[in-house]
């Protein structure tokens, strides 16, 4: 059992996501930064899709009532065990009664806390991920609260060696300025040529309205091509006839502030989505803070697939490192 002494600001149980129900209007939820999420699981010897805790900005304080192995990955929210700082991206052995807590966030936004055996909550529609807006999945469908008791599952593999050290290239760094790659569409034809250019020229600022549902950006207004709105579309020029929203799609209601839709977002509606963040950079979005600066970069589908291969290559290297150390030790 894990006793939640302090919940942090927004700490939820997340796994790989509730995939396969998007067409029914159910977003996938799941860990925002999948790279950090998978590495956290691998470091404690879990299946890579096991449920972990995702904490945003402010880490929780957790007490363990049995011996286990944990790993903390993701943004630099420095973890402490019984008040002693320890490194992220490493498996750490904890004893019964040990208390995990965190210092203030230094960089990035979200940390992932994996425990050997995974966080054991009921599987809802194929996933343990929390979708707070609907109150399903995770721990009672909500963010953790003080006094919650979390169960952990049976570890499927022997605990990982605490000797594991990942090479620098496998540990992401998060600054305050980010480049996020997008593919144009579905409705980029609705923006004027000038505004399309502006969208990529502006350095956007992330507003405090930035959570698992979506991130809202501040910059300059953009303009849509004038037209007589078709049947079924709202009267605002940023409206189109309803369509499914790709995950990571960017809409600009009334041309004022772009919103990137993320893991917990509505699955469809009537705003023109002008670009879509490539899946690999959605992980990066999960580590972007309010007030950070974002520039969008247009890429082709081929470049997006190449980026995915590159990230999968990194995950292979993580697996290789863990295997080598485990056999050697």
């Amino acid at each position, binding site marked *: 059992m894990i006793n939640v002494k302090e919940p942090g600001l*927004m700490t939820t149980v997340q796994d790989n996501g509730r995939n396969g129900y998007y067409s029914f209007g159910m977003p996938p939820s799941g860990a925002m930064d999948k790279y950090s999420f998978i590495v956290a699981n691998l470091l404690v010897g879990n299946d890579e899709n096991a449920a972990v805790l995702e904490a945003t900005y402010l880490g929780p304080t957790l007490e363990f009532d049995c011996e286990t192995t944990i790993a903390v990955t993701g943004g630099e929210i420095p973890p402490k065990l019984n008040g002693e700082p320890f490194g992220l991206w490493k498996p750490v052995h904890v004893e019964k009664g040990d208390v995990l807590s965190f210092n203030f966030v230094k960089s990035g936004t979200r940390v992932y806390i994996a425990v050997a055996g995974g966080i054991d909550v009921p599987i809802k529609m194929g996933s343990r991920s929390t979708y707070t807006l609907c109150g399903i999945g995770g721990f009672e469908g909500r963010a953790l609260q003080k006094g919650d008791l979390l169960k952990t599952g049976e570890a499927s593999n022997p605990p990982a060696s605490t000797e594991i050290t990942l090479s620098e290239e496998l540990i992401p760094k998060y600054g305050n300025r980010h480049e996020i790659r997008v593919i144009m569409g579905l409705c980029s034809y609705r923006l004027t040529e000038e505004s399309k250019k502006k969208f990529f020229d502006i350095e956007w600022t992330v507003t405090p309205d930035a*959570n698992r549902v979506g991130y809202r950006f501040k910059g300059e207004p953009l303009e849509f091509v004038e037209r007589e709105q078709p049947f079924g579309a709202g009267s605002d020029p940023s409206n189109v006839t309803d369509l499914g929203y790709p995950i990571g799609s960017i809409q600009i209601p009334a041309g004022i502030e772009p919103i990137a839709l993320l893991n917990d977002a509505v699955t469809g509606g009537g705003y023109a989505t002008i670009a879509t963040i490539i899946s690999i950079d959605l992980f990066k979005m999960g580590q972007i803070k309010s007030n950070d600066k974002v520039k969008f970069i247009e890429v082709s589908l081929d470049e997006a697939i190449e980026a995915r291969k590159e990230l999968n290559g990194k995950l292979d290297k993580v697996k290789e490192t863990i295997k080598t150390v485990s056999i050697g030790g």
Partner: protein
Amino acid sequence: MAEKIPVVSPIPGVFYRRESPDKDVYVNEGDEVKEGDVIGLVEVMKNFHEVTSTESGVVVSFSVENEAIIEAGQKVAIIEPK
């Protein structure tokens, strides 16, 4: 006299000095506070996080305006411990 202690916000967001627009401010400059007293709120992701004083003492000054956008780790007020 004891050293002045900054109160920092652990999270980024919008800083508020009152609980809601029709309420009084939590504390004024010159007021005495106890350790753990709320001196402001930070709103981010539609959540409100209370910023509390880590010391008992007097609020010397606020370092940011009401409704200012602040960074994680930014100083929001200064306390002179008693």
